[in-house]
């Protein structure tokens, strides 16, 4: 199956690493779009959704410049309550994570040195 993913993260390296590891997946194909902060993520989501390329999954970092992931999540879900947003963060188990979940994120995919695990988590979420 072909999935559209929007990665919203200010760490440049993740925009290189995530497509690389997703590309290795044998059962699914992925199209990964990028935004470097929350505000850009909100705009990108809207643009993709209006262009019939609504992301199947938004991976949202929490701590970012310009607009953080909590606010970006709130703005996206205000317009599209069905948006499938998962936090992609090192801040699992913290208050900021809870705030983002309250803002409409459906869950958390933890950042980890183990990218096989990250990809598995992403695929599990998409196959739900």
């Amino acid at each position, binding site marked *: 199956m072909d999935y559209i993913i929007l990665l919203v993260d200010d*760490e440049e390296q993740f925009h290189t*690493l995530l497509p*690389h590891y997703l590309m290795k997946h044998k059962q699914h194909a992925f199209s990964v779009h990028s935004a470097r902060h929350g505000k850009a993520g909100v705009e990108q989501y809207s643009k993709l959704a209006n262009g019939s390329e609504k992301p199947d999954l938004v991976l949202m970092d929490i701590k970012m410049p310009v607009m953080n992931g909590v606010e970006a999540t709130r703005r996206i879900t205000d317009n599209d309550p069905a948006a499938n947003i998962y936090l992609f963060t*090192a801040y699992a188990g*913290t208050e900021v994570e809870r705030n983002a979940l309250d803002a409409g994120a459906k869950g958390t995919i*933890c*950042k980890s*040195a*183990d990218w096989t695990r990250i990809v598995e988590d992403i695929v599990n979420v998409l196959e739900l």
Partner: protein
Amino acid sequence: MNQIFESMVDGVYMVSKDYKIEFMNKVLINEFGDGIGGICYDVFHNRDEPCPNCKIADVLKRKVVGWEWYSRRMNKTYDLIETPMRHVDGTISKLTIFRDVTKRKRAEEQLKLLARSLQEHVEMLEDSKEQITRAYSLIEHFLKETSHRIITPVTVIGGYAELMLESRNLDDKQREMLMTIRERNNEVQKLTGDALAGSYLKEEEY
């Protein structure tokens, strides 16, 4: 009756309605000198006139009065019990029993000082406990925040190490070094996980 008074460890004296001392037992004579026949306010208080707080009027109305008196001259505190004493001729005198409570009073003062000092120490301990709790909380916050921050570079390093290991152009030495980077990076991740679980700050570790 006098024999009973002489056998008492407390001082006893008797005074008529015109303040004349009719009797003093030996305990009181040893303490204030022989004042029998003298005037009570002169003998006990070195005064020229009756004391303002004299209880004789109450006692003559057949009341029993108990009160505490500090003698500056003797530097002692007494518990006094003053009671009417009816004579065979119908006249009434005031009988006073002196109980020296100086030691008990000093012990009470000492106890009050100790209690105050104890209270101060308890407050100091509570302050210290509060400071330690605040410091502990700061350390815990610092450790957790640092651990969270470390996870991002650990994820990047792990990602690139794995990516480079996919290359076919590596010699054995380079492959070994990359595998070391990957393994040590995994150790760092485990350490941050332990820190986030709070295992470094468990009470039994101290």
